[in-house]
Structure formats: structure tokens, C-alpha cells
């Protein structure tokens, strides 16, 4: 009667008994969360698509958006995503110091993106172009702000992971968390591609 289930029951408490596919299973579960998050963003894009040209006599995208500023934000987030990818290569090779360096650079670049976005939002509200002005600005602040909030929580997660890598080293659970954060971080960069294409680039064109 010594089958595998019985052997799990007799394992001592606290003993490491991780399923061999744990990392894959956790990564797939996180992927399903990302897909649900993608549907959340789809609803916000649909809202922006319907309301994005209703200016209510207020300013248009052409009046408000500075494309070179948006390009700067885009480059911050893209380089952050690519550097995080290099940090994951260092994770697989077990190079702890390179992982920490990569995470630190990715964090600073991501923080640069959030700082630019906060500065942009502050400037818009201070100039009287807040979300209450028109349906265009309401849907703009909701869509872009939701993405920015995600990036901010990703930065928080990245800070926690830097501490964990420094204190615990590249243990199996730490590697698994770093993998899921990499999925989150690349996912947010992909959502930003849709935002700069649909909101900013299309927004300054006279359609």
C-alpha cells in the first residue's frame, strides 16, 4: 500500500516536497491571470475607442500630446523590459550579481517611465485638462492611468525581488517568482505598444 499518495502523507512537516512541475504550473496560472488582465485592458480600450473623439469643446489629442515625450516614455519601458530579459538569462546561469544589476537597471528605467507619466498627468490637470473635462479625457486618464498603476505595482514587486535575491539567493521559489515578474513586465510593455499606437499616435492625427 506504499503508493505515491501514501508517501506524501508520511512526509515530515516543513520538509521540501515540491512537485517537479511546480514552476511550470505556477507560471501557467500566472499566465491565465495575465489573460484576464488583458481583457480588463480590452474593455478600457473599447471605452476609449467609443469615447476617444468626444472632446465636449475641450482640447483634442493634437492640442495635448507631445510625441517626443511619449517616445521617451516608450524607450524607458522598452529598455526596462529588455534589461529584465537579460536578468532572466543571468537567473538561468545562476549569476546572482548580474541578476541584481539587471533588476536594479530595469527598476530605474521603469521608475523613469512612471515619473514621466506622473509629470504628464500633473501637467494636464494643472492646466485644467483633468479627467472631468470631456469623455475623451475621462477615458484617456482611466486607460493610461490603469497601465501606469500596473507598472507601479510591478516596480514594488521588483524591489521586493531584489531584496529576496540579495538575502535568499537564487533559490527555486525565488527563481519561480522572478519568472512570473518577467511575464508581468513584458506584458505591461506589450499593453504600452497598444497605448502609444492607439491613444497617442492616432490621437494627434486629424481623422
Amino acid at each position, binding site marked *: 500500500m506504499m503508493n505515491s499518495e501514501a508517501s506524501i502523507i508520511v512526509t515530515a512537516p516543513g520538509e521540501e516536497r515540491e512537485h517537479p512541475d*511546480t514552476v511550470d504550473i505556477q507560471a501557467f496560472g500566472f*499566465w491565465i491571470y495575465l*489573460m484576464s488582465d488583458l481583457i480588463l485592458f480590452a474593455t478600457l480600450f473599447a471605452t476609449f475607442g467609443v469615447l476617444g473623439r468626444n472632446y465636449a469643446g475641450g482640447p483634442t489629442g493634437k492640442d495635448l500630446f507631445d510625441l517626443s515625450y511619449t517616445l521617451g516614455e516608450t524607450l524607458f519601458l522598452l529598455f526596462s*523590459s529588455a534589461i529584465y530579459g537579460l536578468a532572466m538569462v543571468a537567473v538561468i546561469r545562476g549569476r546572482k550579481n548580474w541578476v541584481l544589476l539587471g533588476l536594479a537597471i530595469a527598476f530605474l528605467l521603469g521608475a523613469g517611465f512612471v515619473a514621466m507619466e506622473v509629470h504628464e498627468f500633473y501637467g494636464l490637470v494643472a492646466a485644467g485638462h483633468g479627467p472631468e473635462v470631456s469623455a475623451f479625457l475621462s477615458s484617456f486618464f482611466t486607460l493610461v492611468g490603469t497601465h501606469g498603476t500596473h507598472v507601479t505595482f510591478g516596480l514594488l514587486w521588483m524591489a521586493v525581488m531584489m531584496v529576496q535575491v540579495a538575502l535568499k539567493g537564487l533559490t527555486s521559489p525565488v527563481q519561480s517568482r522572478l519568472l512570473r515578474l*518577467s511575464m508581468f513586465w513584458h506584458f505591461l510593455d506589450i499593453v504600452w505598444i497598444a497605448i*502609444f499606437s492607439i491613444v497617442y499616435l492616432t490621437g494627434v492625427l486629424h481623422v
Partner: protein
Amino acid sequence: MSKGPLASTGAAGGTIATCLTGLVLALILTAIPFALVMSGALPLVATLWAIGGAGMVQIAVHVHFFLHVDSSSEARWNLVAILYTLFIMALFVGGSLWIMYDLHWRMM
């Protein structure tokens, strides 16, 4: 080179070469639509098509080179999940635009 727990995971299958290839392609695909809109080199409709085309190709580049999702057996279910999500997204976005613009013209 130690074999960590990520060694067998499809989603972690990146190398320095794939990261840098993805970065260069993404930079080119970002530069094209920004340059077209900022210079106004093309007529409006062509510019819109270029923005949409470059954006979709860049998303595919990110999914392939950064997220490593493809039709290999490790990532098969990730691919199935994202295809289903894209179908739902098309219903949401396409359906909303269709209904609301139709309503808009009826109310004119």
C-alpha cells in the same frame, strides 16, 4: 552553468541573443510609426495602416523574443489561452465600436 528549476520552462527560454534581437526589432518598429506621424510623410489612411501594422508586428516580436510563447509543446497551452483571449478581446472591442457607431449614426 547550473541547471536551475527554470531550465525546463519554456517561458524562460531566452538567451542574450534573443533579448538583443527583440530589442533591435522593437526599436525599429517603434521608430517607424513615430517618424511617420511626426513627419507627416504619408497620407492619413496610409499612416493609420502603418501605425496598426507596426504595432501588431511589434507585439508579435515581444511575444516571441521576450515572452517566448510559440507552438512548442511547453508553451502550447499559453498559446491556446492567448488565442482565446484575443477572440474575446475582438468581441469586446469590435462589438462595442460596431454598436456605438451604429447608434451614433441612427441618432443623427
